[in-house]
């Protein structure tokens, strides 16, 4: 068809700048591309309006427009132009040079071209839309892949567990935004028995931020293990980072060294949000001056220190919390955070939970988290007595018991399923000599242990089973309840301080393990790489005591 119509032809398509980047320049098969120069038609060229208002075959020689495109087309030897219009939009132009036979185009030729344009325009439009969609899909996949990589880097490098130090409690939470930011935190065991605590935030998001975070963390760790001064650690890290960090990126960071024996806390700050120190008289900001890392070498970092008395706690946090917005576009803000820290706040992990609940109430249910939120809390424990005889050791079969399994089953990790475990256990042990009171105690202990596994171990992931096994010996019944989490350490069972809870100084929660311990004759806890197991043992009644 092209040969019969003329020796010059070309389809020019109009594309947005984004399409120009994302898609090839023509829908024409590579092998059939002409070698004529491409003529771009500017969107504000008068010829565009003319093509839109006068569809059909246009004889270029007869046009009298002041148009650069028209001049270019004529210069290229074009005689006819056939606008391709779809839904009121000019999506391309079919241009033809002189007829090969040297005759003028006939009315049949024009009718044919007009018909061709009518049919080609919608087809071309569909092709453009498909290509646009493909490009957008590919771009989305690229972004998702980048986010996956960024999440992976970050989650790999964040600590898997919090430190376990006598008289100190630690809790940390990292809640990534969809577009992963560059938050990080770390606990560094120092050679002299002290503990390094680190929180930081890289400007930017995604893979670049994650890579800078990884680099910064490595440099900081290495410096922390060689130097004893927090200010020097930040100074050294800054000098090394300046050579490696991309332009326009920097890192805010707070580094502190805690002496667990004395409560002494030394700290230096590279432009990070000021930590809050909650003590008996109120809440104080831990201030120390210093520029963010990576901006310029040779910076000095002021070093300060304080002492954490028993009951004192410190909150380290990233700006994702204070810069969260509510539906009225108001920021959560520092004053609100400080007020919450000074109010009747619970302790330890309860502080984090309390803050996140307050944040959720303030932002509302429709909130999409704008930035990563990282919270680290550490507290000098008040003098609460740990349960002295709570065995947290490998499960060992007591020699006096020859256990036989009565039943074993799995339940899905969904809230409320602990009632199923209770019922099933009571059915299984129905034939054993257990008093009504003993059975009720066992049922409640089973429910609490199961709930613990569902909530804390399996984190309500329904696909992760809670494994329940009921065993009996001649003198006792045992129930073993196992979750699928070997990473998170089980919280320590402590005697709850009811006075502190009633005074609002501690979370009202935290009764589960304590109840279990007090309801059965023996509770054993064990952990391996993939599971926590709680074993509950109840002695059977003598025959004449059973009810």
């Amino acid at each position: 068809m092209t040969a019969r119509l003329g020796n010059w032809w070309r389809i020019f398509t109009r594309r947005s700048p984004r399409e120009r980047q994302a898609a090839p320049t023509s829908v024409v098969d590579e092998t059939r591309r002409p070698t004529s120069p491409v003529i771009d038609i500017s969107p504000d060229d008068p010829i565009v309006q003319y093509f839109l208002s006068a569809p059909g075959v246009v004889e270029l020689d007869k046009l009298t427009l002041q148009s650069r495109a028209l001049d270019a087309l004529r210069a290229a030897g074009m005689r006819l132009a056939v606008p391709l219009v779809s839904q009121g939009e000019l999506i391309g132009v079919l241009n033809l040079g002189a007829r090969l036979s040297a005759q003028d185009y006939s009315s049949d030729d024009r009718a044919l071209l007009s018909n061709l344009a009518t049919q080609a325009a919608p087809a071309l439009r569909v092709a453009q839309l498909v290509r646009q969609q493909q490009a957008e899909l590919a771009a989305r996949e690229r972004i998702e892949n980048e986010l996956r990589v960024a999440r992976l880097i970050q989650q790999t490098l964040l600590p898997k567990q919090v430190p376990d130090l006598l008289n100190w409690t630690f809790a940390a939470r990292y809640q990534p935004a969809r577009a992963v930011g560059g938050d990080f935190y770390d606990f560094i065991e120092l050679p002299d028995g002290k503990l390094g605590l680190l929180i930081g935030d890289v400007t930017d998001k995604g893979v670049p931020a994650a890579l800078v975070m990884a680099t910064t963390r490595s440099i900081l760790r290495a410096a922390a293990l060689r130097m004893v001064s927090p200010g020097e650690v930040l100074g050294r890290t800054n000098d090394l980072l300046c050579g490696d960090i991309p332009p326009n990126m920097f890192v805010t960071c707070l580094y502190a060294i805690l002496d667990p024996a004395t409560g002494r806390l030394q700290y230096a700050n590279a432009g990070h949000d000021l930590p809050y120190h909650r003590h008996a008289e109120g809440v104080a900001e831990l201030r120390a001056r210093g520029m963010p890392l990576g901006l310029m070498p040779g910076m000095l970092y002021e070093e300060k220190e304080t002492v954490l008395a028993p009951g004192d706690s410190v909150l380290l946090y990233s700006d994702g919390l204070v810069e969260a917005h509510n539906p009225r576009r108001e920021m959560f803000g520092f004053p609100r955070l400080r007020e919450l820290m000074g109010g009747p706040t619970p302790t330890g992990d309860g502080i984090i939970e309390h803050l996140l609940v307050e944040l959720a109430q303030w932002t509302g249910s429709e909130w999409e988290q704008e930035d990563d939120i990282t919270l680290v809390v550490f507290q000098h424990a008040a003098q609460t007595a740990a349960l002295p005889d709570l065995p947290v050791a490998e499960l060992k079969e007591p020699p006096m018991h020859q256990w036989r399994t009565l039943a074993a089953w799995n339940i899905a990790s969904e809230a409320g399923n602990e009632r199923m475990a209770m019922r099933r256990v009571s059915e299984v042990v129905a034939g054993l000599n257990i008093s009504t009171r003993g059975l009720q105690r066992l049922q409640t202990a089973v429910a609490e242990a199961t709930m613990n596994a569902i909530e804390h171990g399996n984190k309500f992931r329904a696909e992760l089973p809670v494994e329940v096994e009921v065993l009996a010996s001649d003198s006792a019944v045992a129930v073993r309840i196992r979750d699928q989490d070997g990473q998170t350490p089980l919280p320590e069972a402590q005697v709850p301080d009811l006075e502190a809870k009633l005074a609002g100084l501690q979370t009202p929660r935290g009764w589960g393990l304590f109840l279990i311990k007090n309801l059965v004759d023996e509770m054993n806890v064990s952990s391996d790489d993939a599971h926590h197991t709680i074993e509950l043992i109840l002695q059977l009644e003598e025959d004449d005591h059973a009810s």
Partner: protein
Amino acid sequence: MPANTFRAVLRRLTSVAIIDLDGEINADAEDVLNTTYAQAAATDARTILLNFAAVDYINSTGIALIVGILAQARKANRELLACGLSEHYVEIFEITRLADFMSIFASEEDALAGVSTKT
């Protein structure tokens, strides 16, 4: 699992506000329990009686909710009483020491009569 149909109904008798609790006291009971307690606290009653006669299950989260209510009551200088607990849950209240901070009566009548003997 079927949804928890926990209910709490506020009654007022002379100077005592009575909250009749019905169902399971677990995490799902939080809103209903706290709302009803707030209604009771909005009255001028100095004594609030929690009636557990129709409660068949309280888990550790439920215990925490009761601790929260007890904390509110103490802060406002209100007396919080309990009645109708089964033997098992009386034992739980003793283990948790809630019984040290709220008087427990066998029945509503006992509580209202001001019987001081704890069950």
